[in-house]
C-alpha cells in the first residue's frame, strides 16, 4: 500500500475560524508544536461573516455593567440550561480577550473619549458588543490570521480531516486529504482541538456557508465523544427572503439594536403581542417606552424587538402563518422610517450594500423583507468547562462545535466572545496535555489508516444498482430537515423525519461520484454528507425525545417549558452507526451565583 504524507505535531487544531485560530495561538504560546488544518483558505472561515460584535462586559458605556450581569443575561437567554461554569468563565474573561485582540492590531469603533465602543443587542441588559461597524467578524479573523502567520504556525489549507484516529481510547492522530490533489495525509498527534463550527448546511434556508456540515460534531462522536443539546438549533429571526438566490443570508441583529423594528403586512409593530411571561418584567409594553430605551436605559425597559432570538423567530413565524407576512413570505424590518440615512449608512454599511447590491433595496428609504434562517447550533461536543476537554483523552473542542455554553439559546454577540475565551482555554490545555505525555504517546495504527483511506475512496467505487448523486442527496436531506425538524416541531413530524433519514442513509451507501481525486467537489460533498446525515439524526433524535418547548426547540404538541426537562440535558453517543441517547442531570450552580437570579 502507498506511503502517505505524514506529519507529527504536539497539537493539531481542526478549523481556522475564530476558535481554531485562537486555540492555535494559545497552544503555540504554551510551547507546543502546533498545526492548523482548514478545509477552505485561511481567513475565509465562517467567523468572517459575523457582523454584530463580541459581547464583553467592559462597562465602557454603562459602568453598571459587570461579568455578573453578563452571566445572568447569558443564562436567562439560554433558559437556564447552560453549563453555568462555562457561562461564568465566558462573562469573566471576555473583556480581557477583546483587549488582547486590540493589542494584536484589531480596530474597534470608538467612544468620543477613545474607548472601545459597545452596542446594544438582544437579551443583553447593557450595550455590550465591541464592534467595527457591521463587519466585526472580518476584523477579528484578519487579526487572528495575521497573528498566527506571524508566529509561524503551520497551516494546512484546503485540507479536510475525515477521521480522528485513536489508540486505546486516546487521540493518536488524524486522517485527511488535500482538496487540491486528493492525496491522503496523516497527522500523528496526541492532542486535537475540534474547532469546525456548526451544522447549518443540513437545512435549506440557512445563513451558513458550504463548510458548515457538522464535521467536528461527527468526528468527535465517531471517536467516542458524546454530544449534548443537539435539539437546540438557532433560527436567526432576520435572514433575507428575497431574491431566492440569497435566501437565508444574514441581516444583522444590529439593525434592531440600532433602532429597527419589525412590522407585519398591516403595518403593526407586532412584537408587543409576543412578550413571554419570563421576560415581561424587563420588556417595554408600549411603543413610547420602547423608543425611549435607546437613550435612557434607566427609566425605560427594552423594546420587544430585542428579546432573545428564539422568541423573535417564533413570533415572525406565527405572523407569517397567520397570513400577515410580506409579499415574499417574510415580515418587514424597518429602520428607514426611524433613523436618518446618514446614521444608517454609518452604522450599518455592509447591510446597506448587501441590500442595494443583492436585492436592489435601499434600506435608508424602504423596509427590508426578512424571515427566520438557520444560523447556529447550540449543541455540540460535551466539554469540561475549564479545559475544553471532551470525554476522549486528548480531544478538545471550542466554539460552535462544543456544547453547553449557550444552553438552549445563544444571545447575539456571545459567539465571537465564546470563540476567544474557549479557543484559548482549549488550545492551552491541549498543549499542557501533550507536554505531560513526554515519550509515551499513543500510536497511530496502520490498520486504522488503511481503513480510513478505504472509507474515503468508497464514493468512487461502483456500488452497483442505483447511482446516487451527492448533490441530489444533499438537497433531499435539507428538504427533510427544513420541513420536519424546523422551528416548530411535532412528534409526528419528527418520527417521520427519522424514517426519511434512514432512507437517506441507505441511499448514501450508493453514492457514485465522477471524475478523479484532484479538486473534485462532488467527492468532497460525498464525504461531508456522511457527517451531515449523522448530525441530522442527532438533532431529530434529541428533538423527538425532549417533550417541552425551550429556546431553540419548540414543540407544537408541548408548547410550554417544563420544570423536569429544565433540569437535564440529552446526551448522544454513536456506536457502529447507531445513535443512542440518555438523560443527564444539569450540574448544580453554586449558591452565590444562584443569588443573582433570586434578586429579581
Amino acid at each position, binding site marked *: 500500500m502507498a506511503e502517505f504524507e505524514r506529519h507529527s505535531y504536539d497539537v493539531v487544531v481542526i478549523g481556522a475560524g475564530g476558535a481554531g485560530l485562537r486555540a492555535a495561538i494559545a497552544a503555540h504560546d504554551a510551547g507546543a508544536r502546533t498545526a492548523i488544518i482548514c478545509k*477552505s*483558505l*485561511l481567513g*475565509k472561515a*465562517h467567523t*468572517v*461573516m459575523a457582523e454584530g460584535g463580541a459581547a464583553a462586559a467592559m462597562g465602557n458605556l454603562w459602568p453598571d455593567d459587570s461579568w455578573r450581569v453578563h452571566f445572568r443575561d447569558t443564562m436567562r437567554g439560554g433558559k437556564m440550561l447552560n453549563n453555568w461554569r462555562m457561562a461564568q468563565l465566558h462573562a469573566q474573561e471576555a473583556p*480581557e480577550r477583546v*483587549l*488582547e485582540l*486590540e*493589542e*494584536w*492590531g484589531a*480596530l*474597534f*469603533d*470608538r*467612544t*468620543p*473619549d*477613545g*474607548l472601545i465602543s459597545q452596542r446594544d443587542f438582544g437579551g443583553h441588559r447593557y450595550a455590550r458588543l465591541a464592534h*467595527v461597524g457591521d*463587519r466585526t*467578524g472580518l*476584523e477579528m479573523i*484578519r*487579526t487572528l490570521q*495575521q*497573528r498566527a*502567520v*506571524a508566529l509561524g504556525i503551520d497551516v494546512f489549507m484546503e485540507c479536510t480531516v475525515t477521521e480522528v484516529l485513536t489508540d486505546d481510547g486516546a487521540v493518536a492522530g488524524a486522517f485527511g486529504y488535500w482538496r*487540491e490533489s486528493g492525496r491522503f495525509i496523516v497527522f500523528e498527534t496526541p492532542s486535537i482541538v475540534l474547532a469546525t463550527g456548526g451544522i447549518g448546511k443540513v437545512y435549506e434556508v440557512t445563513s451558513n*456557508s*458550504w*463548510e458548515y456540515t457538522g464535521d467536528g460534531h461527527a468526528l468527535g462522536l465517531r471517536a467516542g465523544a458524546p454530544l449534548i443539546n443537539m435539539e437546540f438549533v438557532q433560527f436567526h429571526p432576520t435572514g433575507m427572503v428575497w*431574491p431566492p*438566490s*440569497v435566501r437565508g*443570508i*444574514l441581516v444583522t441583529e444590529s439593525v434592531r439594536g440600532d433602532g429597527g423594528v419589525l412590522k407585519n403586512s398591516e403595518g403593526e409593530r407586532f412584537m408587543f403581542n409576543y412578550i413571554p411571561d419570563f421576560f415581561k418584567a424587563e420588556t417595554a409594553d408600549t411603543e413610547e417606552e420602547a423608543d425611549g430605551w435607546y437613550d435612557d436605559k434607566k427609566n425605560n425597559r427594552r423594546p420587544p424587538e430585542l428579546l432573545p432570538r428564539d422568541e423573535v423567530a417564533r413570533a415572525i413565524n406565527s405572523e407569517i402563518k397567520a397570513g400577515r407576512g410580506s409579499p415574499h413570505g417574510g415580515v418587514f424590518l424597518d429602520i428607514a422610517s426611524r433613523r436618518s440615512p446618514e446614521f444608517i449608512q454609518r452604522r450599518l454599511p*455592509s447591510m446597506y*450594500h*448587501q441590500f442595494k447590491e*443583492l*436585492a*436592489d433595496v435601499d434600506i435608508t428609504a424602504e423596509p427590508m423583507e426578512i424571515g427566520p434562517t438557520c444560523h447556529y447550533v447550540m449543541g455540540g461536543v460535551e466539554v469540561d468547562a475549564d479545559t475544553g476537554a471532551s470525554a476522549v483523552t486528548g480531544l478538545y473542542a471550542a466554539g460552535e462545535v462544543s456544547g453547553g455554553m449557550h444552553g438552549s439559546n445563544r444571545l447575539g454577540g456571545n459567539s465571537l466572545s465564546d470563540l476567544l475565551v474557549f479557543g484559548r482555554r482549549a488550545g492551552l490545555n491541549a498543549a499542557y496535555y501533550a507536554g505531560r505525555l513526554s515519550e509515551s504517546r499513543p500510536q497511530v495504527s496502520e490498520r486504522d489508516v488503511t481503513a480510513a483511506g478505504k472509507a474515503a475512496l468508497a464514493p468512487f467505487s461502483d456500488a452497483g444498482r442505483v447511482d446516487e448523486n*451527492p*448533490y441530489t442527496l444533499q*438537497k433531499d436531506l435539507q428538504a427533510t430537515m427544513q420541513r420536519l425538524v424546523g422551528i416548530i416541531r411535532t412528534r409526528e413530524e419528527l418520527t417521520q423525519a427519522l424514517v426519511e433519514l434512514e432512507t437517506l442513509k441507505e441511499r448514501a451507501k450508493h453514492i457514485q*461520484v*465522477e*471524475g*478523479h481525486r*484532484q*479538486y*473534485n*467537489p*462532488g467527492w468532497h460533498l460525498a464525504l461531508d454528507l456522511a457527517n451531515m446525515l449523522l448530525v441530522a439524526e442527532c438533532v431529530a433524535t434529541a428533538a423527538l425525545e425532549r417533550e417541552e418547548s425551550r429556546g431553540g426547540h419548540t414543540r407544537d404538541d408541548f408548547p410550554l417549558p417544563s420544570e423536569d426537562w429544565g433540569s437535564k440535558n440529552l446526551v448522544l453517543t454513536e456506536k457502529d452507526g447507531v445513535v443512542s441517547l440518555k438523560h443527564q442531570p444539569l450540574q448544580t450552580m453554586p449558591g452565590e451565583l444562584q443569588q443573582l437570579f433570586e434578586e429579581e
Partner: protein
Amino acid sequence: MADSITLQVTRYRPEEESEPTIQEYDVPLGRQWSVLDGLNYVKDQIDGTLSFRWSCRMGICGSCGMTVNGEPKLTCGAFLTDYAPGPVRVEPLANFPVIRDLVVEIGDFIRKLPSVQPWIVREEERPVSEGEYLQTPEELDDYQQYSMCINCMLCYAACPVYGLDPEFMGPAAIALAQRYNLDSRDEGSRERLDVLIEHEGIWGCTFVGECTAVCPKGVDPAGAIQRYKLTAATETLKSFLLPRGAR
C-alpha cells in the same frame, strides 16, 4: 428576456489535458442570479466536477474572485442580467498559477503578508490589564478605509506590475501596511518602511490604478501606495540628512 444564458467556462484538468479548454453551459437567467449562482447550478445539475472556490455569498469572505468577461470580479456580486444576452466568459483570476478549472494558487500572497508586519508595533508593550489604547473616532477614520480588505486577490489579478514581476509586494499588502502605519496606536512605521522601500515594495508601482478600480470594498490601494510614496521619499531623505539615532 431570454430564460437562459450561456456561460463559457475555462476548464483545466491537469491530469488529462496540457492546456485549458473552454466549455459552454446553459444556465437559467434568473432575475438577480449572480455568476456564482450560475456556476453552482452547473456544479449541482450539469457537471459535478467543475471546481471553483466560494463561501459566504455576501461579498465578505473574498473566496469567489474570477475573471468575468475580462474583468476581475467577485462572482457573488456579478449579476447574469448585466451580461445578457451573453455569453458570459468565466476564467480564473489572471496573474496566478491555475490549480484546476477556476481555482488558483494564492500562497504567494500569504507568504508576503507577514513581511509588512500587519499588527500593532509598540516600542513598549502595555499589559492588557491596563485597558485599551485610546483612539478617537477621528483617528479611526484616518485609516479605517484601508482595513476593509477581504484578501480577494482581485487587485493582484488587475495589477500589470504584479503580472510582470511576481516579487512585487502588490496592492493589498501595501494597503495593509498603510492601514497600520496610519493607526494612531502603532509605532512601527519605521520598521515597515525598510521593507516597503525595497524595489519590490512601493517603488515597483507605476500607478496604473487598476487595483483601486476593481476593489469591491473601496479600499483604494492605489491611493494608499501614492500616499506612502510621499512619506517614504520624505523619510528616506531625512535618513540621509540625520544621524541614525535621530530617525
